[in-house]
């Protein structure tokens, strides 16, 4: 295993490994992530390395990117990413290499393919469906309101006046 300027001591390496496997730490990483020794001299390459690392999952951890994880495996992956960047590979090639080696599981952004169709489309499909449903409801409501607002026939007017008359009296009395 390649070691940086900041080698984990045997004990804490075992511990980190254990913790990660036992998943006690989860996203809670009390130890250490990117180490000073790993950082590349070229700031542009380093920025790309950080960006890539934040998209890659630490495979033995719970929902943690290799950029944030202290597990030895995450460190190995960070080093691999940086080595390949230094060798001049582009981002897509590096990602493809890691996916080929570890499967889609390594990608924090799931790929868009048949199995993830529902995952990617559901949010927006729901939004469109919801908006469409609302539009339909509001249209039918408007129609209903329009049909209700038609002028009353003379007979209905008279009926209404008769119904309202006693109430008006009452109101008048109360006011008085």
């Amino acid at each position: 295993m390649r070691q940086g300027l900041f080698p984990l001591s045997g004990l804490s390496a075992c511990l980190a490994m254990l913790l990660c496997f036992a998943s006690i730490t989860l996203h809670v990483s009390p130890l250490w992530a990117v180490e000073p020794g790993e950082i590349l001299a070229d700031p542009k390459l380093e920025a790309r390395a950080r960006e890539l690392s934040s998209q890659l999952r630490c495979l033995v951890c719970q929902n943690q990117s290799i950029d944030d994880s202290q597990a030895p495996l995450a460190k190995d992956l960070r080093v691999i990413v940086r080595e390949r960047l230094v060798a001049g590979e582009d981002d897509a090639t590096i990602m493809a290499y890691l996916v080929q080696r570890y499967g889609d599981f390594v990608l924090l952004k799931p790929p868009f393919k048949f199995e993830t169709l529902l995952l990617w489309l559901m949010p927006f499909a729901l939004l469109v469906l919801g908006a469409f449903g609302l539009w339909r409801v509001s249209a039918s409501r408007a129609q209903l309101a329009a049909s209700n607002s038609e002028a009353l026939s003379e007979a209905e007017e008279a009926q209404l006046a008769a119904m309202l008359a006693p109430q008006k009296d009452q109101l008048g009395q109360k006011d008085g």
Partner: protein
Amino acid sequence: MIIEAGHYALVLALALSIVQASVPLYGYWRRQPVLMDMAQSTAVMQFIMVALSFAALTYAHVVSDFSLRNVVENSHSTKPMIYKISGVWGNHEGSMLLWVLILALFGALLAIFSRHMPQVLKSLTLSIQAWISAAFFLFILLTSNPFARVGVPPMEGQDLNPILQDPGLAIHPPLLYLGYVGFSVTFSFAAAALISGRIDPAWARFVRPWTLLAWIFLTLGIAMGSYWAYYTLGWGGFWFWDPVENASLMPWLAGTALLHSAVVMEKRDALKVWTIFLAILAFSLSLLGTFLVRSGVLTSVHAFASDPDRGVFILAILVFFIGGSLSLFAFRASTLRQGGVFAPLSREGALVLNNLLLTTSCATVFVGTLYPLFLEALTGEKISVGPPFFNMTFVPIVIPIFFLMPIGQLLAWKRGDLLAAAQRMTVALIVALLFGLALAAWHGEPVLAAVGAGLAVYLIVGSFVDIGGRIFVRKASTSQMLARGLGLPRSAWGTAFAHAGVGLSLLGLAATGWGVEKIVTLRLGDQIDLGPWRLELTKIEPRPNSNFDALVAQIQIRDGSGIVTQIEPARRLFKTRTMTTSEAGIATLRMGQVYVTIAEQNADQSLDMRLYWKPYVSLIWLGGLIMTLGGGLCLSDRRLRIGLGRAAANKGKQKPNAQPHPVAAAE
């Protein structure tokens, strides 16, 4: 003896909850008011029993009674007292006991503060509440008994997971549970309304304070949890889209939608079916969260349980309550009459749009959280759904909400004038634009941070446009304006503050783009520039403690004129579990924070460090506090204190022959 009493009290609570669940329901069916009234006294007794039980477990933890398995596995005699107490719920069994304690607390509160509620609604609601508590009492007693003894008590315990030995544990779970479980009340209200078939604006008014209460605590709980993660994790992240976090975010989104749709129902008698559905949804998602966290489906620091029996039991509870309530909903919803009609461009219309966006965002979190589980169960294929997914789906759905929030406040009920509302927003837009430009000029790249900050300022200023328009009128003197401001309903102020709180949090989030990060190795006396500050490593020293040994680094922070403050990041080695944790050194300066974590000391005495300057980061949580302040103001509104319920009850007293309250008339 105390332990046995506590255990027995829990069994009694179960018995009481079964009585409370069945007798009032039977009384409703047979129209026996006396039987229905039993719900109140049993609810109070039930709470007292659970409280006794909880007190007994707390006692065992405080005196380190190592004859209890729960204490052995999670405590140690040298553990500080605060963690002995908070350690009661720092484990699966204890946290479930806290869950039912809060459930019973809400039941008792409901029984005590519902004197003015119609009897049918009150007793049915309490009965449903007892169904829930009975299920969870059974769960605890059958699968997760905190009072189990060990055959041969050891001399010493195994100590609490060091990550949990933090003041956060004392605050975060109780707040979160108050929120989660608070939604059980709205759920019970919804089920009661469906059973009795009476749902009207009065119902919405009775439910509103409970929804607000749950929402306030959930907001506080999430904000607190996020801050806890932030300062324990060591790289300053505060939201990870972890399934456990998502589990608390989903009920919050549904609950927020519910708060808004209930307003429409209360004021305009519309959106009834939808409001009832949201009330069911909010608690269903709370239950789902409990299932995800407690069953061990997601292995995580929060999931203390790894026993599959427990998972299956909670799944059964989940299916029973969600399935039952949704069937009831499907069966009854069609009988609900729709009320007030409104134009699409109106306050109601804006609130409907708010609900569409909030529920869609909630569904997005739901899909993102559960999809990997289902995919793996169905095909065996493993995928990860991480922050990049949510940034691409959740964020674009939520952003429009921020735009619409201030405008919606300005639209009138029934039929609004968008143009007039837009005109009134001009001030907010101009201020936001200037602020965004100023920040961009000051902090520079990235542009996205300035755009986000501008949106946040628009939201903050826009939240007060409505209130401003109601206070500042032409030809009014200062004292008149003051009087006008004080005379406004508290809920108007509450709305403004809650919305402005969202804006503040957004400002803090946007400003993360301007953060500075440095990963360096420093020796004693080394200095380094970090944003506007200069940091110097002035001391490295070991500090032994009762149950851990710490390595502490002292760092002085200076600005141009001299020393501002100092921080002490540390590493702690816990003796019992031989586990190391990192304590960040944090100083809050000008709303931002200097954040430093250290690694083990190198052989040459130098120290590897991560240093961050995070401008305005404290606004993220300050915004959460302001949001809850707004919620509190709404809760104290006159309309809720002197509710329609009391008015109706008084009317009933004065005129015995008068038509009783519509909900009471249901029987």
